């Protein structure tokens, strides 16, 4: 979770492609939260 949220955000900082109907960056964070669980 630390790598995904703090590190992954560097590569995820864009709007497209949409992920779960959300901007890619927000979709990535949602993926990280689900992954944390």
């Amino acid at each position, binding site marked *: *979770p630390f790598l995904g949220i703090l590190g992954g955000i560097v590569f995820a900082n864009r*709007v497209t492609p*949409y992920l779960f*109907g959300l*901007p890619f960056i927000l979709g990535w964070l949602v993926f990280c939260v689900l992954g*944390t669980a």
Partner: protein
Amino acid sequence: MNAALLIIFATMVLALVLGLLAGRGRRMDLEQWTVAGRGFGTVFVFLLSAGEIYTTFTFLGGSGFAYGKGAPTFYILGYGSLAYVISYWLLPAIWRYAKAERLHTQPDFFARKYRSPALGVLVALVGVVALVPYMVLQLKGLGIIVGTASYGAISPTMAIWIGVAVVTVYVMVSGVHGSAWTSVVKDIMILAVVLFLGIYLPLHYYGGTQPMFAAIDAAHPGFLTFAPKGSSIAWFDSTVLLTALGFYCWPHAMGAVYTARHDRVFRRNAVFMPLYQLILLFAFLVGFAAILQVPGLKGGEIDLALFRLSIKTFDPWFVGVIGAAGVLTALVPGSMILITASTLLANNIVRVAHPAMSERAVSLLARALVPLVALIAVYFTLNGGATIVALLLMGYSFVTQLFPALIASLLPRNPVTTPGAIAGIVVGVAAVTALSLTKATVGSLFPFLPDVLKDFNVGIIAMLLNLATLAVVSAATRGAIDLRGPQRLPARK
């Protein structure tokens, strides 16, 4: 009286009745009033801990920040998840020690671990200072919610006074039992309302979330991603890390930990809490939906985004339901803050000055201090202008300064001495105060640094000063006098 106002008042009365009933049939000594006799199971501990996520900050701050700031809002989704990972190992260790030593408050933990009543007093003062902006945040939100949802029939000031009266009465009577019972109703209502709004509003106005974000991106290019400078990825990472470390350093968060029946509760909650955190996403969606529908909110007004859009969209009775859920998001966390702040003052400041005080006298004093703490919070609420997120970040900056001494105390051999812990906290808190008052940033303090470092959350500076002081003073005082006694944790129960 309009329908919205009727529903909001009915909810306040329900909260009051539930809060009073919760204390029925119990002898409210300090142990019951503050930590519920350490008898709460997974559900109540979950709800009390989740109270940290679902406050007016979720309801208004999350949606308002999304409306006004865009991408920087995403930090709210990140820090909770990391805090829950840390909690899997941190909270059971704290709970085992607190149960073995029969502790009631966060300063008790520090005072006992470092064998220093002075450190306990310092931690209590830091806790109270951090809790005031957190309580102000709840009351400010309460005023906005009732004032707006009642269509102006009740002024925010009147709403704040009524809310404070309700929460003060049930806290004095039932303590943490009242908070636990009302949190059940609060979480059911907030879940239903935020999920509905977050799904319905983007569908209603844009046809879905993807078309909504496409429209926002077209109207405000760059709003949905981190900027190269300012609120950049460096700001995001440093803010997420700082707030994740500070998450369980709040005095009332530690108080919720003490209420647990056994330590497996925390490990179980660490699995489910991240999923619960996703509700925040739906609060963000409401704020994003408002950007193109109720444009023009500036400064502190951004906290109104959710209600301005709701009033534009729904009938008054449904606005009342939204307002009622919002009222509970202020009252329940507010009750935990009042219990914690008054117990800190009675148990960790007054009692240290008067060691002969009995447990019963401390319990009575703590309950008597509840209205006083509430009045102080009302004063600052009516005389301050900061936004909800700004208030929360300030409180976090203070409590995070306790993290290094807390973690060190849980190590098998604590490398930090009592003077080191005290000096580190004092320097860290002084740095936070100075940086807040001067509104300094890393960039303004160190203009020669590369851009990526200039964007770091300024709290990092306070934390680094704290760590450096803690290390130097501990090295200088180690072996001079060992005040701490044995540091070993009690065996796992």
